[in-house]
């Protein structure tokens, strides 16, 4: 393993009252190496490192020993924090002090630990921000955290952590809240910094792909205990513990083949698809001040597609792509949209309130946050019965109760759940109830808006399986919105790729993911971590810089992607690309796609 261990942890335990959150955790870490700690929520991985840094709340009882280069951690960490050991956290917006400038926050450790004056410290801070590849450093120094994008903020956090040249850097889910393209950049940055400085890096994550990309050694945690440990190649290729195996199996891989189109019949010319969307646009009018002229924010800028019977269509995109705004507009649940939406022969966007209500029983939705989708004051049975009460007034109480029970069983929950309330359920159970509520009316269209993104990986797999079954057995069409390409690949036959309100590429999932034509699709695919460590390192090393998505308020003219596109030419600023056919159903909206295809 090379150098002697820098960080040693023996028998660490954390208890709150009678309940043990972490038990008997031991591991080593040497300089220049990265320890990946993986587990699902509640595994105790963050708690472990917070204990090492002495950042747990007062009620926590910590036992065991830990030391960094011979100096004690746990209680002794107070002397080492910010100097020999530094930590960065998951959500950079809430983890940075909102009223202090970036420059001051990055400079602060130098003032506190190295005794520098503020002016000197700020100069050094500018150098640090440069090292983490923050653009336009002089301006950033005087800006506040909310003025920066997510990726920039996290880079600032890293700069802050590295200010006093720590020997150990602890990163707690540093990229979880970020877009996948930004995540790749950040991981690449971390790798380079670790190598340059011969630091030890402890990386906590729930994503196997991140482990593959970054870790030299892996610690698998579950229920507060270490379940398996070993070098990364061994853990990923030949896992021994059944939990590790289950975790790997549940992690969706991009390489998986997508489902064979179930209803090729619908694709024949002449047969009208039940859902047709033409040139839909959603605009918000905003005023920055009450006397200023109102500005227009274009969230969705002319989107068209068809959806066949029993087909699952994935819509992928990062933040600002407009995918959620689009689906809500289609269901008329948010801002009013322009354009044409035809569902079951009716023009959805033009219906009045009464006609719209009548149509609601054929199109339903499941949201991202399972707990927020259920009214905590209502029981599960009442939640599921509500659409029946509203839209099937002729049904009497016994019939409703029977329907509720039936639907509950269909989603894999037994009838006993009828009286429970959402705060007592797990995330996966809540989401099943939400699906039951959506399916109780037997809708022909089900829209899933990031429906599995907040769930643990193993639960994700179960819910995806449930959705696939619903599609198969009941012939429901699915629109599945997600930022996770692997998940979309597992479930959807066709996919739309969106960027800043436009569809940049669309077609059968296999075709689009295996042979992408649009530079953005390529960038997205390149950013998805694979599960082979060797390929991962190579991929990261080869990654070019790609910046952050501009805010929808400042959409670039012409092609919206041109500001980040490695192949952009001046002509891309002049014309907005329209979708062109690559072949039968594969379309791409790029002016240069022919030249760029090898």
């Amino acid at each position: 393993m090379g150098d002697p261990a820098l960080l040693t942890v023996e028998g660490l335990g954390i208890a709150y009252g009678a309940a043990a959150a972490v038990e008997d955790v031991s591991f080593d870490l040497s300089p220049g190496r990265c320890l990946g700690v993986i587990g699902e929520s509640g595994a105790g991985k963050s708690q472990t490192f917070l204990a090492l840094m002495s950042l747990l709340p007062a009620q926590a009882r910590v036992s065991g020993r830990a030391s960094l280069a011979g100096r004690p951690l746990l209680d002794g960490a107070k002397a080492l924090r910010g100097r020999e050991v530094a930590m960065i956290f998951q959500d950079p917006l809430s983890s940075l002090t909102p009223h202090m400038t970036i420059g001051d926050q990055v400079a602060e450790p130098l003032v506190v630990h190295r005794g520098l004056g503020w002016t000197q410290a700020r100069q050094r801070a500018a150098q640090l921000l440069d090292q983490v590849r923050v653009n336009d450093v002089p301006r950033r120094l005087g800006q506040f955290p909310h003025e920066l994008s997510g990726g920039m903020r996290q880079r600032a956090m890293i700069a802050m952590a590295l200010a006093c040249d720590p020997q150990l850097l602890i990163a707690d889910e540093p990229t979880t809240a970020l877009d996948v393209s930004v995540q790749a950049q950040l991981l690449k940055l971390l790798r380079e910094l670790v190598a340059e400085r011969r630091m030890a890096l402890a990386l906590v994550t729930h994503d196997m792909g991140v482990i593959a990309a970054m870790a030299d050694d892996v610690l698998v945690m579950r229920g507060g205990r270490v379940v398996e440990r070993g070098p990364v190649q061994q853990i990923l290729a030949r896992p021994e513990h059944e939990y590790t195996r289950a975790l790997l199996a549940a992690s969706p891989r991009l390489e998986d083949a997508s489902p064979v189109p179930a209803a090729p019949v619908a694709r024949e010319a002449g047969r009208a698809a039940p859902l047709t969307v033409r040139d839909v646009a959603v605009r918000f009018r905003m005023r920055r001040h009450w006397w200023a002229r109102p500005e227009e924010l274009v969230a969705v800028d002319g989107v068209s597609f068809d959806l066949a019977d029993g087909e699952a269509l994935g819509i992928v995109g990062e933040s600002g792509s407009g995918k959620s705004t689009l689906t809500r507009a289609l269901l008329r649940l948010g801002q009013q949209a322009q354009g044409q939406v035809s569902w079951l022969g009716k023009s959805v966007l033009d219906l009045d309130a009464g006609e719209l209500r009548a149509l609601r029983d054929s199109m339903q939705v499941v949201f991202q946050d399972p707990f927020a989708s259920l009214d905590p004051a209502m029981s599960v049975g009442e939640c599921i019965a509500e659409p029946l009460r509203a839209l099937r007034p002729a049904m009497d109480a016994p019939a409703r109760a029977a329907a509720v029970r039936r639907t509950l069983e269909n989603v894999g929950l037994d009838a006993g759940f009828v009286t429970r309330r959402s705060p007592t359920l797990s995330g996966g159970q809540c989401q099943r109830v939400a699906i039951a509520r959506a399916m109780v009316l037997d809708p022909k269209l089900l829209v899933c808006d990031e429906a599995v993104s907040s769930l643990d990986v193993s639960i994700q797999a179960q819910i995806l399986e449930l959705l696939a079954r619903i599609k198969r057995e009941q012939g429901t069409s699915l629109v599945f919105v997600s930022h996770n390409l692997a998940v979309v690949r597992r479930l959807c036959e066709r996919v739309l790729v969106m960027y800043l309100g436009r569809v940049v590429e669309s077609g059968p999932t296999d075709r689009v993911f295996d042979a992408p034509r649009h530079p953005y699709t390529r960038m997205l695919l390149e950013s998805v971590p694979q599960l082979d460590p060797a390929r991962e390192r190579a991929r990261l090393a080869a990654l070019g810089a790609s910046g952050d998505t501009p805010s929808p308020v400042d959409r670039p003219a012409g092609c919206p992607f041109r500001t980040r596109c490695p192949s952009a030419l001046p002509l891309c600023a002049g014309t907005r690309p329209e979708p062109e056919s690559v072949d039968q159903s594969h379309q791409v909206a790029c002016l240069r796609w022919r030249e760029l295809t090898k």
Partner: protein
Amino acid sequence: MNARLGPSIAILGVLALLAFAAPWLTPWSHDALDWQHLAVPPQLEASHWLGTDRLGRDLFARGMQALRVSLALGLLATLVSVAIGVSWGAVAGYLGGRIDAAMMRFVDIVYALPYVFIVIILATLFPRGSLAALFIAIGAVGWLTMARIVRGQTLSLRKREFVTAAIAGGVSTPGILWRHIFPNVIGTVIAYATLTIPQVILFESFLSFLGLGVQEPYASLGSLINEGAQEMETSPWMLLVPAGLLVALLAAFNALGNGLRRRLVDHG
């Protein structure tokens, strides 16, 4: 947690019991004059347990009567304030947009004005001792905080996904207000209503202290304190008795309201 609510409820219970049972407990009425015991300190003789005032009126009887007035007015006025405040806040929070902005701007302006202005304006508009003036004055300030709180809650509830899901499920707007918004707001309303009661009682006492509230021969805790303040050099009990009752009443309501707020709002 339960320890917090217990003592307050007990104190309030005792005060309410005493107040309404007083006519049977004491031989004196609130306006009977005892010429032989003018301004005497608390004593057992002649059943003047809390002493008498300058005119020989028994302070226990007057104090309890004042307590009755305060409790009744407090509860009634609070009910009205709550009704106005909840409706105002729920409508503003649910409708949102310009209507919400206008409605809450109104609340902001009234909230920032010293309520003495309203009192003065009312004092010039109505004859003295008018109960209508009293009610309007109290009502004018009591509903503001409730409106703000309910509006905040409604606004955040409306954005929650279960409301969107209910709309997708075909539930009508009144249905959403009744089945989703109301049950989730009721806890907050109860907690803050309990906190409004002492504010209302305090305000009423303040008005009576200024001479604008309850008139002779009826007493309010405020008017008793006013009288007591004038006599405090020679008869301090005339001040201490009503002041003590008022403080106990207010403190108990506040403690109860805070405890409820901790239970129902912060952990809700």
